[in-house]
């Protein structure tokens, strides 16, 4: 795979489409174990991201993702703003200066993003959070010889669905304890859309 500026913008546009289409679904997931604003916040954030990245000319993927990060931080609010913002910010820092990003660099960016989310959210794997999607996807990029679009979406989807079985110990959902079991984590669901969108971009390239 090789991601250029135009692919990155396309990636963000696809994320936005998916978040907008599933805004109510994300909010319903959050209603079950949170405070039912996840869909609203993410839709506001990614709408602004798309507006932002289409209003400028970019030379590097890193710059696109840095603007994405700053927009998410300043528009989303809640816990998702800093967490998704930090993820994209660390991602952009990990691939700084490259005008195109190959699989190796992308894997590095993802690894940095996961470290950022874990540090900011003081969360680790298995706590029913977005980490549970970002981390296995990052591992897949690192450990696979040649990334396949279908495997990206499979890895992310499987990881998202597994959050259903976990009892939340971090974030708002942790107040629900055992009652949180049986519900997909909203942050994991929106993270799935991030990687589903990515797989579509990769697929077009294949």
């Amino acid at each position, binding site marked *: 795979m090789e991601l250029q500026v135009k692919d990155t913008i396309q990636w963000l546009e696809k994320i936005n489409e998916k978040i907008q289409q599933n805004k109510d679904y994300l909010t319903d997931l959050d209603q079950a174990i949170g405070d039912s*604003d996840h869909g*609203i916040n993410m839709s506001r954030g990614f709408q602004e991201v798309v507006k932002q990245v289409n209003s400028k000319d970019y030379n590097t993927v890193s710059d696109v993702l840095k603007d994405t990060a700053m927009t998410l*931080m300043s528009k989303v609010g809640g816990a998702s703003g800093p967490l998704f913002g930090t993820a994209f910010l660390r991602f952009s820092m990990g691939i700084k200066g490259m005008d195109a990003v190959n699989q190796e660099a992308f894997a590095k960016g993802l690894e940095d993003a996961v470290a950022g989310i874990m540090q900011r959210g003081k969360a680790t794997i298995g706590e029913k959070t977005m980490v549970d999607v970002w981390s296995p996807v990052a591992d897949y990029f690192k450990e696979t010889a040649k990334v396949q679009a279908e495997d990206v979406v499979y890895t992310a989807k499987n990881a998202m669905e597994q959050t259903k079985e976990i009892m939340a110990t971090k974030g708002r959902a942790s107040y629900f304890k055992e009652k949180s079991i049986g519900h997909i984590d909203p942050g994991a669901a929106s993270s799935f859309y991030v990687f589903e969108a990515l797989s579509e971009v990769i697929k077009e390239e294949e």
Partner: protein
Amino acid sequence: MKKIINDPNQVVQDMIAGMIAAYPNALKQIPETTVITRSEAPVSGKVGLVSGGGSGHEPAHAGYVGKGMLDAAVAGEVFTSPTPDQIYEAIKAVDGGKGVFLIIKNYTGDVLNFEMAMELAEADGIQVEKVIVNDDVAVEDSSFTTGRRGIAGTVFVHKIAGAIAEQGASLEEVKTTAEKVVNQTRSMGMALSPCTVPAAGKPSFHLAENEMEIGIGIHGEAGIERKPVATADDIATELTEKVLMDMDLIGNEEVAVMINGLGATPEMELYIVNKKVHQLLAEKGIQVYKTFVGEYMTALEMTGCSVTLLKLDDKVKELLDAKSEAPAFRN
């Protein structure tokens, strides 16, 4: 959904404009932000106090901006923490050279956003300290959770930290005092009915006609137990006893009491709860120094209430009594 609004996406901006119109001499808005400050901010030689959180908790938080209390409040979207850039603007606006103190309610989003803003301000050379309020005894504190929530007791922290800052205390003294108040404040709430977030358009949870939820937070998030509606006396007893269980009051000590309405509870009912709370405290030999009954930290139009107790000592009493000119807290 039936609400007196113009556009669900504009409620926060419209509210802020209306607040400024109501208190043009006391409050001002930092242009292009959701930050409301005292009109004289920054006050030179005084620690600046910043609080904030999601909107929908009115009069928290901007109602507590004024001489003797907060220097700035940052309004997030409804029930959503404000973003780091907005909090950062508030910090810069109230820095009078003696540092800035942040009062944060223990919700993951609030903590994350305020901490990021703190990092931004510190990178700018502004000294910033913080306290995290976690007065809600409904949610257990353990190493596996993010800890207890911050609810109505936060108003006592605003008041007392505000008073000591107004006296010219250092950033360190403000922090120590605020931490003491957090340690001595406990709350617990309940709800009879949910509320509707304007942008969501539908109630945030469901309770049957004969049900109530005990131990609820201030966003309509679930409590610890759902059960049949009880009498005011039973509700007051359950809340007060849970609060007392978590405080080391050995009797003969003084407390301040807050009976807080969550947005749609008639004062009549709050006073009925207060009657029982006073009776229970009297039975245990606990002296009530001062009582606050009303809406201090709401959850839009949620029906319900919370009971907060603050254990007092002479210094805290003096600070609680100190003059405040904030629109929603005058004494």
